[in-house]
């Protein structure tokens, strides 16, 4: 082993793996996908910083348009001799499969690093299991699985070395989230040791096999029945040799680092009778469980599978004690319809073969089971249950563990109370808000302890499913030995609640250990806090004899100038109370870290942080826990209203309060079908400040309702009789249209659903003449008005929505009276995308089909437990689905074609059955125009009448028509997605769909980055802006998708920005729908990834338009048909410079700091591009119709 001083770090699995991958490659072709994105981002970041690989050059990191593209690039780079890698997961790996067969078939050395993740089936999941890698097991790639952060680091190197030597490409994988995102202490491999593992001659051999005109040959031929088969068999010796090669490399690695690995690593009793075989992080859990069981006299063991492919029977047999009588194989995947999951099948086959060959004396009992899908917890209790099952004479085969399967009865029971000896650990649980810095501070704590003390540290972070007001739970462990516990904390020594109201939303103290410590951030002091707590929390504290501390972190933060950042304060409390380090030492370490973190920001900032630390200790108080419960009992299961549907009460509500794990299989929809409109039952109350309407000042323009991203503000007009039964304080104003003296107007704020984004106040044009600081809508404290508003909302709900045929859809003012069927989504506060979707749902919601590309809009649009696409009183509403990221245009086209087909068949049938159905009705249905809303409503009535008639007619044709007759009402098909989809991964499909001429409407919610995965650059990212993968500034201009679509001539195209010109947005959406052909709307969507407070989002939209950066246009082929100019420029000539828009946003501004000369150069170019495009657009807007592509 090296005598060098050990390099200790605390990293997550992604960084641990990428650290090596970056150093042993020359090219990285990347594409973001959760949970692997971090690896790619780090590679890009390191390259931007000039960090070199072990050969002293900076790897070339290129972002591609999709994983398919990345794989192609990897293939090409490999074929020309570069050491090349990529990082991916899940659907990304699926897109790489075709190339992987090629790469393996050509015996090309390469490693793909995979943060293994679930595949989208009945629903998408971003979380971890082995479904993706298992789907790749036939590609010919070797597969090496890491079970921990240290292994992710070590195996990244071992796989690279083995691949170069064996010529077999490797998938190096580890569990998504559990390993990729867990932070743990590890030893880093120094560069000289990495270099030692990658001999030059193997690198030269790799290069020598590459394509070169200096040594020409062809590779990639087309082969025929005569030789393909034999060709396929040529590679066998390479696969046969690979396990031995990996073993040798592991041995060499052990010599060098002291860390010894085996292909099949056995841990446990040498004379074990019962063993579990598994792969990935779960093996640590089973190993630790076996250790405990063995200490109690049991004979158990574990085989942790490292090298899954090529599968080596010999190594398996070598690892397995001869005493084994029964084996359970655990697969973290599901292969429906198979005779067993892959690892189980391999083990079974191996043992049977071994028996046949006489290498195994007695066939052990063998069972297989599934565990841990989509990061489902896998705990020592579950491992014990599997060991216990193996004791039985007839253990259950094809079992599941960790769920309650009351349908197929596959599940094993387990005792959740069983835990390992956790006495050496100090365990902390922290409940924070997504944006309050809790996770960041905890990562910091782990670094402090992991890197500055001999202690080991582990951190894992759990997020909820919403983007705004999301709760985070940090699980931290500290101990004197390496922490091998890849599961959540159930018995915490220390529980911290960083947000007081969480106490009413989650029973966090159930996870506190007897005698543990509870720290609460509370505005109430030590004398008054007790009575403010819910009864359940009080009871836990009394029963568990918890030590209880309070701190008013918000006030301390404010008083020490750290306003809004309670993280340092709460972190200090943790160090002071948790006992992980002696108090004084802990505080000294925090201060050291502060100095390190802020040294560039100057003494003042450091002092400010020091003061915050000192003030924290002065304001941290212990509360004497009284002996009696005085608080109110709040049942977490009563979170939804009594009138909620059963599904919501029985299923959704359980997920909402964090008890989804307890739902049995029988409660789950069998095919991924969930009821619409469930966000209305989840009153999240995430904002203390909510808009309050001032009827006196209001001019009833509807702007606030229009821009509200969460459909929290709604308007109705109604007869004054509706006020008779209204609550006393129900606000109302006479409608401001003349001639309706008895009509009243109410603007209702759904205060419990508000995220506090402020857009409504920003957009309000009316100022209170009596108090010019107030508008017609103002943010005020919610608490004092909450009960009143709840009553008002109830009354407002009872007022019928206005008759759609009576509303002028063509104005913003009119649109406010349309019921939104997209409401209360989990999108970020102030989201710039959702107002478009809400408007879409208002305009066409009752006949809307939405194909939604994966991304932000599919997450806030379709992430459980509650979803925002809603249903109106008639039971009509948007039908929404998400297929994939890459295929959304095609998916939506499929919806259109299907709808058109069914409409055509229905019309044929109706024509045929005309007389039976009644000729006048038939004719009116067949000849109806359905352009105006009133026409659609009439058609609906006619179809209802038809259905009634058909139900009385006997006969096959009538029944056929009945099943299709709803299609006689026009359906509006919208293909929705972000720029990552439309500009990059789905661009080819989108292009094809636009060229199809079919009547689909495409809405691109353009945030100019991959927002959902964390702000990576797309081809929509503008020049001069930074983004991940464009840290040095994007140097190529944004693709003009509008002009590309316009070039077809028959595509309706609009570029809109609701914050700049809401009327134009509305017009474009209506024209797109009215146009009988493909339509494309590019919608400016401000986003947190732009880097400013989104309350200024509308202002930025205006600046985007006024600077000419985002010219508002419409291209209407209908006008071309009428021999008019179809190109309409809706915005005025630029009045401000691009800088005046761009430099309000961090994404642009940042470049002026990090790369000032580049920023200046790119901004100049960007301005030139804006000028040029404006000039071109102006010319287009003045051309005669004949200068545009004619339309058929």
């Amino acid at each position, binding site marked *: 082993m090296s005598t060098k001083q050990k390099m200790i770090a605390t990293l997550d699995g992604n960084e641990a793996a990428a650290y090596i991958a970056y150093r042993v490659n020359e090219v990285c072709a990347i594409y973001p996908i959760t949970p692997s994105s971090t690896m790619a981002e780090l590679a890009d970041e390191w390259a931007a910083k000039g960090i070199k690989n072990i050969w002293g050059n900076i790897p070339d990191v290129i972002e591609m348009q999709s994983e398919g593209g990345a794989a192609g690039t990897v293939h090409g780079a490999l074929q020309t001799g570069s050491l090349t890698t990529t990082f991916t997961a899940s659907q990304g790996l699926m897109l790489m499969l075709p190339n992987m067969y090629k790469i393996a078939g050509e015996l090309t050395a390469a490693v793909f690093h995979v943060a293994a993740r679930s595949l989208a089936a009945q629903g998408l999941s971003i979380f971890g299991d082995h479904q993706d890698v298992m789907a790749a097991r036939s590609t010919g790639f070797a597969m090496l699985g890491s079970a921990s952060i240290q292994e992710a680091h070590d195996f990244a190197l071992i796989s690279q070395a083995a691949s170069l030597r064996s010529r077999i490409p490797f998938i190096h994988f580890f569990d998504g989230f559990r390993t990729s995102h867990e932070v743990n202490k590890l030893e880093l491999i120094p560069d000289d040791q990495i270099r030692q593992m990658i001999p030059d001659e193997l690198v030269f051999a790799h290069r020598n096999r590459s394509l070169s005109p200096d040594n020409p040959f062809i590779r990639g031929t087309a082969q025929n029945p005569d030789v393909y088969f034999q060709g396929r068999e040529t590679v066998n010796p390479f696969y046969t040799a690979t396990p031995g090669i990996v073993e040798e490399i592991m041995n060499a690695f052990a010599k060098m680092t002291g860390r010894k690995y085996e292909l099949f690593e056995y841990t446990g009793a040498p004379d074990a009778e019962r063993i579990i075989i598994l792969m990935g992080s779960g093996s640590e859990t089973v190993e630790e469980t076996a250790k405990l069981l063995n200490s109690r006299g049991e004979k158990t063991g574990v085989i942790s599978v490292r090298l899954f492919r090529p599968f080596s029977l010999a190594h398996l047999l070598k690892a397995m004690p001869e005493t084994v009588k029964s084996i359970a194989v655990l697969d973290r995947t599901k292969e429906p319809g198979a005779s067993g999951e892959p690892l189980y099948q391999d083990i079974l086959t191996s043992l049977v073969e071994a028996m046949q060959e006489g290498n195994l004396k007695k066939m052990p009992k063998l069972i297989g089971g599934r565990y841990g899908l989509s990061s489902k917890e896998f705990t020592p209790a579950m491992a014990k249950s599997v060991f216990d099952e193996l004791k039985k004479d007839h253990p259950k085969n094809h079992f599941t563990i960790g769920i309650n399967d009351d349908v197929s009865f596959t599940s094993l029971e387990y005792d959740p109370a069983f835990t390992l000896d956790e006495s050496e650990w100090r365990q902390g649980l922290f409940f924070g808000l997504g944006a309050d810095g809790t996770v960041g501070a905890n990562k910091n704590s782990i670094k402090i302890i992991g890197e500055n003390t001999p202690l080991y540290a582990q951190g894992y972070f759990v997020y909820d499913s919403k983007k705004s007001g*999301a709760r985070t739970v940090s699980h931290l462990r500290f101990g004197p030995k390496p922490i091998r516990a890849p599961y959540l904390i159930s018995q915490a020594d220390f529980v911290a609640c960083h947000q007081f109201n969480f106490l009413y939303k989650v029973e966090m103290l159930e996870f506190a250990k007897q005698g543990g410590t509870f720290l609460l951030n509370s505005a109430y002091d030590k004398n008054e806090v007790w009575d403010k707590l819910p009864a359940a929390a009080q009871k836990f504290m009394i029963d568990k004899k918890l030590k209880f501390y309070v701190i008013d972190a918000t006030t301390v933060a404010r008083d020490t100038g750290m306003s809004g950042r309670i993280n340092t304060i709460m972190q200090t409390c943790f160090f002071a109370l948790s006992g992980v380090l002696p108090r004084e030492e802990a505080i000294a370490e925090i201060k050291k870290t502060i100095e390190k973190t802020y040294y560039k920001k100057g003494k003042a900032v450091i002092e400010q942080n020091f003061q915050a630390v000192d003030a924290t200790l002065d304001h941290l108080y212990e509360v004497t826990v009284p002996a009696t419960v005085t608080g109110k009992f709040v049942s977490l299961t009563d979170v939804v209203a009594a009138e909620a549907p059963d599904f919501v009460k029985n299923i959704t509500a359980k997920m909402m309060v964090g008890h989804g794990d307890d739902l049995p299989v029988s409660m789950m929809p069998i095919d991924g079908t969930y009821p619409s409109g469930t966000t209305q039952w989840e009153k999240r109350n995430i904002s203390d400040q909510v808009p309050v309407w001032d009827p006196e000042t209001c001019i009833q323009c509807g702007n606030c309702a229009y821009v509200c991203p969460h459909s929290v503000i709604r308007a109705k007009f109604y007869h004054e009789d509706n006020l008779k039964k209204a609550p006393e304080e129900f606000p109302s104003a006479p409608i401001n249209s003349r001639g309706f003296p008895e009509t009243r107007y109410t603007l209702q704020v759904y205060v419990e659903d508000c995220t506090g984004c402020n857009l409504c106040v920003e957009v309000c044009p009316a100022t209170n003449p009596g108090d010019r600081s107030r508008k017609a809508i103002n943010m005020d404290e919610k608490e004092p008005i909450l009960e009143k508003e709840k009553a008002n909302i109830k009354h407002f709900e009872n007022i019928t929505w206005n008759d759609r045929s009576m509303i002028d859809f063509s104005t913003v003012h009119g649109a406010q009276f349309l019921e939104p069927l997209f409401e209360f989504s989990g999108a970020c506060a102030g989201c710039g995308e959702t107002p478009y979707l809400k408007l879409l749902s208002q305009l066409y919601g009752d006949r809307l089909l939405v194909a939604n590309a994966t991304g932000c809009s599919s997450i806030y649009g379709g992430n459980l437990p509650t979803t925002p696409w809603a249903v109106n009183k008639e039971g009509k509403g948007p039908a929404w689905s998400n297929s994939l990221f890459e295929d959304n245009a095609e998916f939506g086209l499929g919806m259109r074609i299907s709808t058109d087909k069914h409409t055509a068949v229905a019309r044929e049938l109706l024509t045929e059955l005309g007389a039976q159905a009644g000729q006048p009705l038939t004719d009116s249905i067949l000849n109806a125009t359905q352009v105006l809303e009133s026409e659609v409503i009439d058609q609906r009535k006619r179809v209802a009448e038809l259905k009634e008639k058909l139900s009385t007619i006997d006969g096959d044709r009538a029944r056929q028509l009945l099943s299709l007759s709803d299609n006689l009402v026009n359906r509006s098909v919208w293909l929705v997605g972000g720029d990552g989809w439309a500009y990059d991964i789905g661009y080819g499909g989108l292009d094809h769909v636009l060229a199809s001429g079919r009547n689909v409407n495409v809405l691109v919610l353009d945030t100019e980055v991959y927002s959902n995965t964390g702000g990576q650059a797309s081809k929509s990212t503008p020049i001069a802006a930074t983004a991940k993968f464009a840290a040095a500034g994007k140097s190529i201009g944004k693709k003009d998708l509008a002009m590309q679509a316009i070039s077809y001539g028959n595509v309706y195209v609009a570029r809109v920005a609701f914050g700049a010109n809401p009327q134009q947005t509305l017009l474009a959406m209506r024209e797109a729908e009215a146009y009988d052909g493909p339509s494309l709307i590019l919608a400016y969507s401000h986003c947190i990834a732009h880097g400013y407070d989104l309350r200024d989002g509308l202002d930025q939209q205006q600046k985007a338009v006024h600077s000419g950066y985002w010219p508002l246009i419409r291209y209407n082929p209908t006008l071309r048909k009428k021999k008019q100019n179809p190109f309409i420029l809706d915005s005025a000539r630029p009045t401000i410079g691009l800088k005046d828009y761009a430099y309000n946003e961090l994404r642009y501004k940042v470049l002026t700091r990090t790369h000032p000369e580049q920023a200046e150069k790119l901004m100049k170019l960007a301005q030139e591009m804006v000028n040029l495009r404006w000039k071109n657009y102006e010319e287009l807007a003045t051309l005669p119709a004949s200068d545009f592509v004619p339309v058929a």
Partner: protein
Amino acid sequence: MDLRTTYMGLELSSPIVVSASTLSQETHHIVEMEEQGAGAVVLFSLFEEQIRAEAARYASVRNATSHMFAEASDFFPNLETYETGTEEYLEKIWAAKAQVEIPIIASLNGITSEGWIEYSRQIEQAGADALEINIFFIPGDIHVSASEVEHRYLNIITEVRNTVKIPVAVKLNPYFSSMGNMAMRMQKAGADALVLFNRFYQPDFDIHELKILSNLQYSGSNEIRLPLLWIAMLYGRVPASLAATTGVESANEVIKYLLAGADVAMTASALYKNGIGYLKTMKNDLDQWMEDMEFSAVKDFKGILSQQNISDPTAFERANYIKVLHSKR
């Protein structure tokens, strides 16, 4: 003509100096200023609050968007090298120094004691020939006494003086009870030059929109009298260089200031109005005037109309005021 002058120890080829303005944000402008005859250039101001506000904004955006949900731990490339403001400024000094021969005077507008010290140190290290400190402080709090305000100024000067070795000019405002005494104390505290005067932000109102207007107006030649008075008063009495910086629209004002005793006259508004090339016109006009007046060097006429050099020094005092009042009748 010999236009040379000495300004806080710096030898300048001309007494016409470009004052702190956005014009100097572009290095090629500074090159042009030199070509057109500027004696020196005061760079645009580095505003501490801007740096702090940007740092705070940056931190708050990062904070508010980090670790919000499982898929995105943050939204921006990791910016360890992100420097909020100073880097860019220091780069400008460096770039300007590399491209021109004339002295580059940096301008710093601080708030906190740490800010003054830290940024002045960095500015010196970046190679600025001198530092002009711009103490922009409106004592809006009516509980703050005059002496507290004065101490604040003096403390800042002392701190900066103790931090850097390059010459330090102080751009000050005229609103001290005893301007002359204050000028002397500033010099004693370490100011090598006094720049007269800073113009405070003075808002206007829009009476129709009932809004405050914050548009900035360039100084005009009618505003030169106050600085002219004080330069004339201070010349020869306070051992510091004097710079005039208000209302220099043409060579006429430059001449007046020099006559009063200024070492340099600074302008930006003339260049905003007429372009950087106007520097040459001003210089030519100055030349012409000197020729007409038969002065061969700036030193020959500098300060000849200062209070100490004229036969009736009271002309600058009350008697002069009374004379003016009488002349209005």
